[in-house]
């Protein structure tokens, strides 16, 4: 896919960033006090806070990752939408108001309200730092993946740009500006996605999207390919032996790879066109058999090959009609495999109905066959998503920025409504992208912006800029949480350095810079990692470390400070350790054979969350102060 660095998108992007940073400096003057820095002076209106919840929550993973997952594999991405949103129920009905009652500025404060224990302050602050950093990594990776094709910058440049802008925002004004960044971002995201969904429904499905210049992928009878003029067939040897591919060279030296595609109705053997990326020993990259250049890159993908009743296009569709037609259609998905250093992208015609239930991705395909390990993995994932939302430190901080409980309640509901509506839209956006004819076969994260581009360039520019501020908003919220943990919890409360308010704010700003720099470095280092996997990681750790303590503190009088401290540490260590020993980590992080991984499935929540509760109860009972008998 060739992404021309669009001047329009660059201009819009710079305007956005300029506005955001401008607001930040303007409001910076108002954030002199510690209270102002950490909790936006407690006076943000509830509906602004509500949309800011949405802006906070709808991170790069939500917008880019879920749409991309749905665009490439169907319903499984939507599972994340459901789980992420359901988590707000835990937040609103179990955690929200007790938290507001308990705390002052940060999550650690809330947990510690009753005990005044350095152990709790320390473990909660570490938990906040760990979760924040793990949640930051996928956002930074997402930023790099977004900037690279959009503006033509390398991954590390995009990551550094995001990190620098956010550091400036947070260090100058703290919470207030992040609230406004997220409010703007949340509102824009929902509005633009609504617009795109309407456009998707209006366009309907088309077996020949694009225009006459759009490349149409071919499926041809074997003889037509092999006996064409100038074609030389290469022998099936080495790594290509016993694989369903045929390699040919054309008269001008182009190397083509064709995949065996079964038989047609008349029993004639077919070959389907593939796309390839290969690197020669001297470093020259070949795409589709010719050297890569501005004029030679992979073709966009994503088409409906068959519509019901043999139609070629459907015209405008209603919201449920969209699914009905999709179910009866055939879609051309693309998968890829690596053979002898060449990545081959090949067509996989798939029934639409198979893409509208769980089990389309390789990780969850075992659901359709009743495999028990996959079943437990799936249940564990849904549990982690359900419990993780309320446990994320950067979400919890936002409860304190509204002046009273009623406002906190209303703002959470506003947030749920905006987020819920957005997640309903993701299914349309993902399926729309899947059939738009404009997807990049190598990069799932760009599905949503590319969908916009398939409509028009202006929409693409705006959506990309909004996606970028998506990352800005989430990253600034996370850095706030982390800098609060350092300045307020660790320095003031654990190390007992009484700094006075102004110096506390200075320390927080320094912490924001340091955490920001760490985030930039990690975002560069983790370029290759799958964004949704990392977010799932953060949710598992948050739910395991934070939730048992929060819930038991609120609902069980027998909770002791040692119980909380140990539960947080055990939950964090077990979930983190489990993840680091999983098949996914072996494959994507260490480059080892995933079959040798120590733990049987990838999501620890189903083990580590109950363990956290158990540990808390046991330790609390052991450290309970004996009650004095009254006569």
């Amino acid at each position, binding site marked *: 896919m060739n992404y021309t660095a669009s001047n329009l998108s660059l201009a819009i992007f710079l305007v956005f960033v300029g506005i955001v940073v401008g607001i930040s400096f303007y409001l910076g003057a108002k954030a002199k006090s510690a209270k102002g820095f950490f909790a936006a002076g407690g006076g943000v209106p509830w509906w602004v806070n509500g949309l800011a919840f949405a802006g906070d929550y709808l991170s790069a993973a939500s917008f880019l990752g879920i749409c991309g997952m749905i665009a490439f594999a169907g319903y499984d991405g939507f599972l994340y939408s459901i789980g992420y949103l359901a988590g707000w*129920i835990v937040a609103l009905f179990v955690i929200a108001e007790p938290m507001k009652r308990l705390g002052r500025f940060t999550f650690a404060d809330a947990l510690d309200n009753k005990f005044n224990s350095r152990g709790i302050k320390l473990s909660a602050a570490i938990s906040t730092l760990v979760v924040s950093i793990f949640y930051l990594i996928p956002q930074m990776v997402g930023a790099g993946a977004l900037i690279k094709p959009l503006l033509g910058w390398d991954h590390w440049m995009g990551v550094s740009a995001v990190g620098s802008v956010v550091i400036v925002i947070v260090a100058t004004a703290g919470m207030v500006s992040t609230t406004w960044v997220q409010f703007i971002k949340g509102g824009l995201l929902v509005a633009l996605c609504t617009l795109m969904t309407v456009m998707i429904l209006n366009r309907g499905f088309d077996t020949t999207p694009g225009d006459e210049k759009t490349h149409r992928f071919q499926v041809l009878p074997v003889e037509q390919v092999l006996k064409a003029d100038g074609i030389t067939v290469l022998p099936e040897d080495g790594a290509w032996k016993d694989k369903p591919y045929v390699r040919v060279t054309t008269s001008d030296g182009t190397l083509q790879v064709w995949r065996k595609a079964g038989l047609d109705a008349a029993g004639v053997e077919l070959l389907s066109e593939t796309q390839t990326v290969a690197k020669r020993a001297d470093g020259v990259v070949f795409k589709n058999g010719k050297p890569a250049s501005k004029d030679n890159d992979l073709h966009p993908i994503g088409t409906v090959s068959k519509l019901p009743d043999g139609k070629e296009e459907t015209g405008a569709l209603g919201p449920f009609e969209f699914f009905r037609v999709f179910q009866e259609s055939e879609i051309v998905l693309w998968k890829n495999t690596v053979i002898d250093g060449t990545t081959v992208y090949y067509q996989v015609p798939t029934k639409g109905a198979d893409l509208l239930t769980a089990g389309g991705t390789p990780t969850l395909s075992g659901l359709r066959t009743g495999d028990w390990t996959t079943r437990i993995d799936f249940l564990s994932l849904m549990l982690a998503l359900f419990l993780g939302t309320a446990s994320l430190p950067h979400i919890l901080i936002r409860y304190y920025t509204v002046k009273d409980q009623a406002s906190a309640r209303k703002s959470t*509901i506003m947030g749920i409504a905006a987020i819920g509506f957005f997640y309903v839209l993701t299914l349309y956006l993902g399926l729309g992208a899947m059939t738009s004819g404009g997807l990049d076969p190598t990069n799932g994260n760009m599905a949503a912006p590319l969908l916009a581009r398939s409509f028009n360039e202006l929409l693409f520019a705006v959506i990309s800029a909004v996606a970028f501020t998506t990352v800005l908003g989430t990253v600034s919220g996370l850095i706030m949480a982390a800098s609060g943990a350092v300045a307020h919890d660790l320095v003031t409360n654990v190390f007992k350095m009484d700094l006075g308010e102004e110096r506390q704010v200075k320390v927080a700003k320094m912490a924001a810079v340091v955490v920001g720099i760490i985030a930039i470095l990690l975002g560069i280092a983790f370029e290759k990692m799958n964004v949704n996997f990392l977010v799932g990681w953060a949710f598992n750790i948050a739910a395991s470390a934070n939730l048992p303590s929060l819930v038991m503190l609120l609902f069980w009088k027998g909770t002791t400070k040692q119980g909380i401290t140990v539960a947080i540490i055990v939950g964090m260590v077990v979930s983190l350790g489990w993840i680091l020993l999983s098949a996914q980590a072996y494959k994507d992080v260490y480059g080892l054979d995933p079959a040798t991984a120590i733990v049987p499935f990838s999501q620890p929540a189903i083990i580590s969350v109950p363990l956290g509760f158990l540990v808390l109860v046991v330790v609390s009972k052991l450290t309970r102060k004996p009650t004095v008998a009254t006569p």
Partner: protein
Amino acid sequence: MHDHENVREDEHPEIIAHNTRLGLMLFAVYCVMYGGFMGLSTFAPEVMKSRPFGGVNLAILYGFGLIVAAMLLAVVYLFLAKQADSADSKAA
């Protein structure tokens, strides 16, 4: 050390108790719905493929349903939860 902004609401433990009970009940209702989704997807995937009405499969209808239910329960909570300055608190 502690935030005194919420003293008014802390003075009405019966309101707090009422809201907490309400919250937990609504949470339990949602757990049943969410658990149903998890259970069906795991143990009865063919049911999720069926099309009960509108020609759309249950997986999509149930998924949308969970999202809408979350919003509705949140609104129910907003209306049924008591405020610190409500008539009930003055009478207490």
